[in-house]
């Protein structure tokens, strides 16, 4: 194809996006669009899969049968989200095995929040309420993103995430209204998860490298700082409602802006975790790589069995 022809296609492509048309797997797309989508969608898929670990950590110790069932269902939903996001990614011409390779080698990133440990039961509440809460703020706009398979996956993901968030808040509410010991568990969890949740919405706009292009392709509809403000404004009244204190002495309602002012985020900590030096980075990767390597003989057997079965079928047909 000549350069001019490509240019032409690009112009048409951008016009389709501007008209809010969905781009489908077989449509022509610029290489950069494809790569950017693989990067973002796989990062999202990896986050779901790695995110199963900190919550899976409490399945065997959930305090009641009702909570255990809800937690199992939640972690299972996350595996399901990982599955459709990987499948959506595969429509862009990359295999799940290649995507796993990128995760295991450290080339691909996942949400840094999962590199913090879940040390008490209250963390199941805090993760649902804050982490899923921040995730929804990030993800709801993606239900209208330009790439069709991603947009459709996100509709379902968001429905389930919002259920998870309510479930997390309900765990926190129960603790906050419980015995003094339970309330302390809840406050402690909020203290530990609040700042990492704010960081989860990404670096400040000035530092964010992908924003401009992503906005154009509707992979992103609001800046990180706007999303963060939205999260804070939404979450502070929820904490007040259940009598917990946000661990930020500078947090104050700003009448003029009709928003909360908040204290400085420790971006050094953020970059430390992103660069692989958070409290649980190594353990999370070890668990993922371990599961993959220990499962190799199982996957090999499944393939071998399928081939044998196929061969027998063909033989019968002859």
């Amino acid at each position, binding site marked *: 194809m000549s350069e001019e022809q490509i240019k032409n296609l690009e112009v048409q492509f951008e016009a389709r996006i501007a008209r809010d048309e969905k781009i489908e797997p077989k449509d022509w797309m610029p290489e950069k669009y494809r790569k950017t989508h693989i990067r973002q969608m796989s990062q999202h898929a990896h986050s779901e*899969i790695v995110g*199963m*670990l900190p919550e*899976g950590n409490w*399945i*065997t*110790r*959930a*305090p*009641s*049968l*009702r*909570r*255990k*069932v809800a937690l*199992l*269902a939640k*972690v*299972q939903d996350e*595996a*399901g989200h*990982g*599955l459709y996001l*990987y499948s959506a990614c595969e429509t862009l011409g990359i295999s799940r095995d290649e995507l796993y390779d990128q995760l295991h080698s450290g080339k691909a990133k996942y949400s840094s929040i999962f590199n913090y440990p879940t040390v008490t*039961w209250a963390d199941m509440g805090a993760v649902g309420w804050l982490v899923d809460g921040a995730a929804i703020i990030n993800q709801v706009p993606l239900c209208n993103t330009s790439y069709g398979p991603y947009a459709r996956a996100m509709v379902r993901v968001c429905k389930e995430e919002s259920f998870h968030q309510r479930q997390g808040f309900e*765990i926190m509410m*129960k*603790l906050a209204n*419980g*015995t003094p*010991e*339970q309330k302390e568990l809840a406050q402690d969890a909020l203290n530990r998860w609040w700042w990492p949740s704010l960081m989860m919405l990404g670096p400040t706009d000035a530092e964010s490298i992908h924003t401009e292009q992503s906005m154009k392709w509707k992979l992103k509809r609001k800046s990180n700082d706007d999303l963060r403000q939205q999260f804070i404004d939404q979450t502070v009244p929820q904490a007040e409602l259940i009598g917990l204190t946000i661990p930020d002495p500078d947090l104050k309602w700003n009448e003029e802006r009709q928003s909360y002012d908040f204290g400085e985020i420790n971006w050094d900590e953020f970059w430390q975790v992103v660069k692989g030096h958070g409290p649980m980075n190594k353990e999370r990767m070890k*668990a993922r790589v*371990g*599961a*993959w390597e*220990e*499962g*190799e*003989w*199982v*996957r*090999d*057997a*499944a393939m*071998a*069995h399928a081939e*044998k079965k196929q061969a027998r079928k063909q033989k019968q047909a002859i």
Partner: protein
Amino acid sequence: MKQNLYNYILGIADNSLILGQRLGELTGHGPSLETDIACTNISLDLFGQVRSYFQYAAKIAGDNRTEDDIAMLRKEREYVNVLLVEQPNRDFAYTMARQFLFDIYHLLFLQELEKSKDLTLSAIATKSIKEVSYHERFSGDWIKRLGDGTEVSKAKMQDAIDGLWTYTDELFHQTEADKAMVAEGIGVDVTKLKETYYKKVNEILEEATLEIPESKWFQKGGKEGIHTEHLGYLLAELQYMQRAYPNMEW
């Protein structure tokens, strides 16, 4: 309180409780995303059944005890699950072999329990049959895949079947509560399931090109609360929150 009925329900539900707990340990660590989802799903089904059984048992007890008290506040010797279900997740072959050896029994058992004169138990059985039919298909398929897969998988699966075989006979032992409930038309006579069980198990093992173990030495004790050393650790995790923070609501 109808002590025999209460004990009888515990005898059924503890199997699902302990096996569900074992499967719950694996969530997020499976050999593939699909098997991870399936094992979590089976665990969820089992815990759902446990809740129905224990809610019923709590009602029969008629004091203030709850489903969680029954599930999480008994002592080691008061759990009456069979030894099979408490065996650890040594590897995926063991996990699937344990599942398969239990599922075949579980489905046969539920099909009989559905005929119980006790309408609550019959209703729980009807609902569970749908779930357990899926479990049985899932684990049976994996026996065939791993048995008739690669040399490595075959060796591992044979090892798992050989290792767990010793726990199968206990499934067909009758307890005092069993006998009393069978006499009332409420319980299932498990001794009558034995022949069909081994027939079905052997058929699948043969299809999977695996050897049927010849050993006639079997372990027992779970139904009397005498367990393998593995159970204590499982209970320590299962009960942790209820023990560390007693008398609270979650």
